[in-house]
């Protein structure tokens, strides 16, 4: 039982928290701008590498580098919107999706160009895990869980309590109605990109802290982010966060030896869990757990 908690449930929660942040960003952009933003994964990568630059240049820990990661990622999202997405707003959502795919590749190309394909890390070294009786938890896992909870709380306060958040939700519910009732559409879109980029940068840096930095870091979890967002009901950031948690737990638990010592699924195929969840949702509950948009 303890093994299940220490080696599967806690890592599952941590991965789930990272997916939750990534999926919330995807869902937010989908809600306000109505397209699947395939650039989200590479915004995560960008944020993680921006944090690496701060870590190397200032000799700080990656946790302290988070604001740098966020500050470096928001302009990228704004620039992509100004240069590409904003001009395609009247085109079909499919065209925006293709454009975001192209933008994703451009970001990845820059990361490859500057940092090369070799995996890197933040140089934290080995930190002994914390022990609470028999329960072992890695310090970084504790920080990631706390950080993700704080980010989720901030997102909740923004969406639920502020004028700007209300405007974002109004755009997601009915863009035309929002426009005619005087919601400043351009400002809401800028804010949405900023929030999505911040969530991506945090999720990317957390993921890199927990694993390692590679130029494919974010793209490798893009499928999971979308599966979580659809599971939670696309366009609903809270649903996406819950979907992310569930998916992270499912991924880690999938390699638990439930069956007489054999893992349920070979760890090499963990990525397939996100796909399986996606397929099951599409078959049985395409609107997601919390009725997403049509």
């Amino acid at each position, binding site marked *: 039982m303890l093994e299940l908690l220490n080696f599967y449930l806690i890592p599952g929660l941590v991965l789930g928290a990272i997916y939750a942040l990534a999926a919330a960003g995807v869902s937010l952009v989908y809600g306000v701008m109505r*397209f*699947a933003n*395939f650039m989200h994964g590479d915004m995560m990568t960008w944020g993680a590498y921006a944090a690496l630059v701060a870590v190397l240049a200032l000799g700080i820990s990656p946790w302290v580098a988070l604001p740098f990661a966020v500050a470096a990622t928001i302009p990228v999202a704004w620039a992509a919107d100004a*240069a*590409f997405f904003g*001009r*395609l707003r009247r*085109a079909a*959502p*499919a*065209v925006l*999706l*293709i*454009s975001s*795919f*192209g*933008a*994703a*590749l*451009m970001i*990845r*190309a*820059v990361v*490859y*160009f500057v940092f*090369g394909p070799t995996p890197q890390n933040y140089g934290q070294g080995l930190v002994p895990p914390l022990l609470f009786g028999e329960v072992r938890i890695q310090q970084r896992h504790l920080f990631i869980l706390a950080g993700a909870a704080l980010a989720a709380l901030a997102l909740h306060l923004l969406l639920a309590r502020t004028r700007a958040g209300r405007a974002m939700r109004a755009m997601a519910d009915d863009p035309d109605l929002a426009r005619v009732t005087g919601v400043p559409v351009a400002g809401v879109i800028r804010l949405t990109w900023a929030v999505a980029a911040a969530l991506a940068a945090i999720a990317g840096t957390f993921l890199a802290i927990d694993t390692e930095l590679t130029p494919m870091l974010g793209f490798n979890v*893009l*499928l999971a982010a*979308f*599966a979580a967002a*659809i599971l939670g009901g696309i366009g609903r950031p809270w649903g996406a966060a819950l979907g992310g948690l569930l998916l992270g737990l499912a991924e880690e638990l999938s390699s638990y030896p439930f069956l007489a010592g054999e893992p349920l699924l*070979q760890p*090499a*195929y963990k*990525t*397939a869990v*996100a*796909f399986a969840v*996606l*397929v099951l949702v*599409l*078959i049985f509950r*395409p609107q997601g757990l919390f009725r997403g948009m*049509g």
Partner: protein
Amino acid sequence: MEPFALYFATILTLAGIYAALTLGLNLQWGLTGLMNFGPLAFVAVGAYTSAILTVGGSAQHLGGFGWPWWLAWPLAALAGALLALPIGAISLRLRADYLAIATIGIAEILRLIVRNEDWLTGGPLGIPGIPRPFEGLGLPWGQFAYLALVAAVVAGLYAMAQATARSPFGRTLRAIRDDEEAAKAAGKNPAAFRLQAFVLGAACMGLAGAMLAHFFKFMGPDALDPVTATFLVWVMLIAGGSGNNLGAILGAVAVWALWAATDWLAGQLPGELATRAAYVRLFLIGLALQLILLYRPQGLIGERPPRPA
């Protein structure tokens, strides 16, 4: 002279294989509006199906059937179609973006299978010794003959794609793409038509995968790169002209020529710079896609729906 001719034949052969892929994507996206972001998956299934059926026996992977290529290639196309069937059946009745996400997923899973199921695919070592048709003719004629074979396949696919686009079936696909509600009102079942177009396009991609495997005479996980097997195909189709079969072929040849030329140019640079030049090229091809979407969304030659005869 001969090395140059061989190099040229290699470029053209690969351009032809890309043309088959782009024609398949055109059937899905150009004609029907289906976003397949996993051509890699169907290429992989086709390539490995044909490779396994034709190679000699080996302890490293499944094989030893020793079938002739002309029997294996149709089965590679069939394998692509069979993979597309369940994916399409699940995701095509929903929003268009869901197919894009599902196909990205299936492409990633295929990459995992290829890398991990050693008994089937040879894992990271791949499958060597895939026979290339007309190899017996020696160089350079064997390679020219293979080019001719690829060209003939592409011509055949083009003729079929043209016939499809002109047929009532093709008209229905365009109608569903442009106005689903109107097509429904006319009594068409969009989901069924979409599924047929998706499966047909996937069959083209499976066949392209087989041609690729037999050209390389080797198939391994490194030959399946999302950038070259998926993204480049999209750029080719959009540059050439979505919805236009000739545009699909033109885009494949033009973009591949550019890709190969920049590859050659980058190769002239010293070591480290050559690697970096590849990333610059990746950036530029992404930028090129954006510029086409913004300034020439119809591509080199846009769609010209045929007039009813």
